[in-house]
C-alpha cells in the first residue's frame, strides 16, 4: 500500500493538467477519456487499499515529503489510510467514476467540455487529498481546494449572471465556516504542538488538555463543517449551487464535497467525544437542519431545488447521528446517501436533458412512459431517500433514528421521524408531479422531443440504482452491520470515551424500524392523495388553506432576505462608507495632494529651465568656480 497510495490523488491531478493544457486546442470533444481512465485507475487502487486495510488495528501512514519545516512547526505531506479513509475513497472514486461517465453524455457538445472535465478532475484530486490527509493542515488544503473547484463548477455557465452569483455566494458563505475551521486548526497546533491526527488524538485521549479548550476546538472545527456541509444557518449556498451543471450537483453538492463536514467531525471523533458540549451543538444543529430543510423542500418547484434541500436535510441527519456518537451510523448514511442522492440528481439531470433544459416540475408530468429507464431508476432513488424497506436509505436512516432513541434523546428521534415523514412526502410529490399523469404540461415542441438519454447516461443510473437497492445491507443493525464492524478500529477510542454501548438487536429496534417504515409510507400516501388522486383540487385547496405559511416556506423562511438585510447590507453599506469616506477622501486625498504639491513646486522652479544651453553652461562654470574656490582657498 505504501508504494501506490500516492497515485490515487495523483492520477486525477495528472488528468486535470493534461486536459486543461491540451483540451482546448487538441483533445476537445474527446476530453472525457483521460479523466475517466484516471478515475477508473484511482477507483481500482482504492479497492486495493480497501482490501488491504481491512481489519488493520492501526492506520497506515505514508510519508511523501516534509511540507512545512519552520522551527517547531513541522508538517509532513503524508497520507493516512484507515478504514474511514478507505470508505471515503471508495465513495469518491466509485460514485465519481459513474458521474464522470454520465457527464460524457450529459455535457456532450458543450463549448466548455474540456474545461468541465478538467475541473472535475481537479475536484477529484482535491477531495481525495482531503480524505487521505494525515494532518489537519493537509485536510484544510484539500478542504479549500474542493471549495475552489465547487466555485469553478457552480459558475461553469459563467455567462449566466445567476450562475456567477451562485458561485460567489457559495464561496463567500463557505468562507464564514472556513474562518472558524482555520482558527480551529491554529488552536489545535497551539494546544497540541502538532497537527498529525495520531499525535493530536493520543494527546486528547491522554487527557492532558483542558475541557474548555477541547470544546473550543471542536466548535471551531464544526463551524467549518457547517459551512461545507450546508448546515443551518450556513445552508443558504447549497440550493443556489444548483446553477451548476447537474453532474456537478450530483458529485460535489450531493455525494462527496458536502459530506466533507461529516467526514471532518467523524475524523475528529476523539476530540468531539471529549467535548460533549460541542457534540450536543452538533446534534442540535443537525436535527434542526434536517427538519428545517425538509419543510422548505416541500414547497419547491424546481426539481433540482427539491433535491438540494433534501441534501441539506439528509446532511442534517448525518450530524444528528454524530451528535449521539453514532460515528459509523453517520458514515453509513453518508455512503447510502451518496448512492441514492447521486442517483436522484443524475436522474433529474436525465429528466432535464430529455425535456430540453426544463427544470420546473410544473411543466413536466407523464414522463414515466416516455423515459422508462430514467423513471425506474429515479423511483429506486426516491424509495431509498424516503426510507422504504429494503432500500439503502431505510437501513441508514433507521440506524440514525435508532441510535438517537437508544441514547435517550427522544426529542431528536421524534423530530427525525417527522422529518422522515416530510422527506417521503416531498420526494414522492416530486416523483408524482414529474412522472405521473397522462400528458406533459409543456409546449408541443418540447413534448415531441422528449427522448430517453444515451447509454453513457443510463448505465450509471442503473448501477447507482442497484447500489441504492442493495447498499443498505452493508449496514444492518446491531452486530450484523458490516460497515459498523469495518469502521470499528477508527472509532473505538471515541466510543470508549463516550461509553457507547455495544450494539444489539432487540424487539425495540424492530418496533422502531416498523414505525419509521410506516411513517415513510404515510408520507408517500399523503403525496399520492394530494398529487395523484385529488390533483385537481387538493393542491389548490391546501395552497389556499396554508396561504401565508406556504408563502413563508416557499421563500425559504426568508433566510436569504434576512442575510441580505443584515450581513450583506452592513457589509455593502460599510464598504460604501469606507469607499466614500476613507478611500476617496484620505487615500485619494493623499495621492492627489502629493501630486498637487509637486505640480506647484514644479511651477515655481520651471523658469530655471530656459532651454538655452548657454545658460546651463554658465551654471556649470559658476559651479566649477565655487568648488575650485572652496577646495583651493578654504
Amino acid at each position, binding site marked *: 500500500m505504501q508504494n501506490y497510495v500516492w497515485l490515487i490523488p495523483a492520477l486525477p491531478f495528472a488528468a486535470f493538467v493534461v486536459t486543461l493544457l491540451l483540451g482546448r486546442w487538441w483533445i476537445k470533444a474527446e476530453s472525457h477519456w483521460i479523466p475517466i481512465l484516471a478515475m477508473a485507475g484511482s477507483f481500482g487502487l482504492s479497492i486495493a487499499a480497501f482490501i488491504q486495510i481491512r481489519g488493520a488495528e492501526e492506520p497506515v501512514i505514508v510519508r511523501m515529503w516534509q511540507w512545512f519545516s519552520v522551527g517547531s512547526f513541522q508538517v509532513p505531506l503524508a497520507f493516512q489510510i484507515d478504514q474511514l479513509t478507505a470508505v471515503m475513497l471508495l465513495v469518491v472514486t466509485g460514485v465519481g467514476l459513474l458521474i464522470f461517465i454520465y457527464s460524457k453524455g450529459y455535457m456532450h457538445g458543450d463549448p466548455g467540455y474540456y474545461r468541465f472535465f478538467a475541473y472535475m478532475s481537479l475536484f477529484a484530486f482535491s477531495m481525495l487529498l482531503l480524505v487521505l490527509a494525515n494532518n489537519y493542515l493537509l485536510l484544510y488544503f484539500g478542504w479549500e481546494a474542493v471549495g475552489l473547484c465547487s466555485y469553478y463548477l457552480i459558475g461553469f455557465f459563467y455567462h449566466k449572471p445567476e450562475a456567477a452569483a451562485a458561485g460567489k455566494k457559495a464561496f463567500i458563505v463557505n468562507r464564514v465556516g472556513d474562518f472558524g475551521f482555520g482558527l480551529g486548526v491554529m488552536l489545535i497546533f497551539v494546544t497540541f504542538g502538532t497537527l498529525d491526527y495520531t499525535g493530536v488524538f493520543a494527546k486528547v485521549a491522554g487527557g492532558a488538555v483542558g475541557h474548555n479548550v477541547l470544546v473550543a476546538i471542536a466548535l471551531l472545527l464544526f463551524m467549518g463543517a457547517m459551512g461545507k456541509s450546508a448546515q443551518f444557518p450556513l445552508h443558504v449556498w447549497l440550493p443556489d449551487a444548483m446553477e451548476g451543471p447537474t453532474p456537478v450537483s450530483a458529485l460535489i453538492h450531493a455525494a462527496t464535497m458536502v459530506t466533507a463536514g461529516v467526514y471532518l467531525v467523524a475524523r475528529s471523533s476523539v476530540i468531539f467525544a471529549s467535548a460533549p458540549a460541542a457534540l450536543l451543538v452538533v446534534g442540535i444543529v443537525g436535527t434542526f437542519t434536517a427538519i428545517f430543510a425538509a419543510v422548505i423542500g416541500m414547497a419547491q418547484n424546481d426539481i433540482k431545488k427539491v433535491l438540494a434541500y433534501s441534501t441539506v436535510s439528509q446532511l442534517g441527519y448525518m450530524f444528528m447521528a454524530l451528535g449521539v456518537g453514532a460515528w459509523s451510523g453517520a458514515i453509513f448514511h453518508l455512503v447510502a446517501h451518496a448512492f441514492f442522492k447521486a442517483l436522484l440528481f443524475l436522474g433529474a439531470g436525465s429528466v432535464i436533458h430529455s425535456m430540453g433544459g426544463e427544470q420546473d416540475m410544473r411543466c413536466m408530468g407523464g414522463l414515466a412512459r416516455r423515459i422508462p429507464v430514467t423513471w425506474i431508476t429515479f423511483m429506486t432513488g426516491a424509495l431509498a431517500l424516503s426510507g422504504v424497506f429494503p432500500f439503502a436509505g431505510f437501513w441508514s436512516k433507521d440506524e440514525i433514528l435508532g441510535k438517537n432513541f437508544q441514547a435517550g434523546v427522544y426529542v431528536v428521534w421524534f423530530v427525525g421521524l417527522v422529518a422522515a415523514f416530510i422527506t417521503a412526502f416531498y420526494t414522492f410529490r416530486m416523483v408524482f408531479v414529474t412522472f405521473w399523469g397522462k400528458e406533459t404540461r409543456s409546449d408541443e415542441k418540447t413534448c415531441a422531443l422528449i427522448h430517453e438519454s444515451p447509454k453513457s447516461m443510463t448505465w450509471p443510473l442503473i448501477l447507482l440504482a442497484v447500489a441504492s437497492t442493495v447498499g443498505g445491507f452493508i449496514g444492518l443493525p446491531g452486530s450484523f452491520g458490516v460497515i459498523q464492524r469495518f469502521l470499528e478500529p477508527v472509532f473505538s477510542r471515541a466510543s470508549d470515551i463516550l461509553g457507547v454501548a455495544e450494539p444489539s438487536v432487540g424487539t425495540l429496534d424492530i418496533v422502531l424500524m416498523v414505525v419509521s417504515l410506516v411513517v415513510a409510507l404515510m408520507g408517500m400516501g399523503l403525496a399520492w392523495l394530494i398529487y395523484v388522486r385529488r390533483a385537481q383540487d387538493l393542491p389548490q385547496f391546501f395552497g389556499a388553506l396554508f396561504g401565508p405559511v406556504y408563502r413563508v416556506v416557499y421563500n425559504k423562511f426568508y433566510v436569504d432576505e434576512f442575510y441580505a438585510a443584515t450581513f450583506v447590507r452592513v457589509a455593502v453599506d460599510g464598504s460604501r462608507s469606507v469607499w466614500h469616506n476613507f478611500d476617496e477622501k484620505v487615500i485619494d486625498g493623499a495621492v492627489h495632494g502629493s501630486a498637487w504639491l509637486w505640480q506647484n513646486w514644479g511651477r515655481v522652479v*520651471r*523658469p*530655471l*529651465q*530656459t*532651454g*538655452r*544651453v*548657454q545658460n546651463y*553652461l*554658465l551654471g556649470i*562654470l559658476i559651479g566649477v568656480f565655487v568648488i575650485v574656490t572652496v577646495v583651493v582657498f578654504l
Partner: protein
Amino acid sequence: MAPTPADMPIPVDWYLYLSAALFMTGVVGVLTRRNLFIILFSIELMMNAVNLNLVGFSRFHENLTGQNFVLFTMVVAAAEAAVGLAIATALFRNRQTLMVDLFDRMKG
C-alpha cells in the same frame, strides 16, 4: 614648485598665463556668442588652451607623456569638430538659422 630646468628659456608660468587667457577667451566666446560656428571655434580655443598647458608641463617635468597626450587630444578635437560641424549643418537644414538663442524648445 620644482626649479625650472636649465634648458627651458621660458618659465612654465608664462605658459600657464597664456593658457588661462586662451581658455577664458574660449569660455566667454561659448557663453556669449550666438552663432553656433563661433561657439564651436571657442570650444577649440579652450581645447587648445588645455593642450598648451599639457605641453608646458611636459617640458617642465621633462616627461614626454604630456606631449603624447596632446597628439591624442588633437585627433579627438578633429573628430569632435567634424561631428560638431555635421550637427550644425543638420541643424541649419532644420531651422534655417544657427543662432543658438533661438534653439529653446526644451524650455520648461
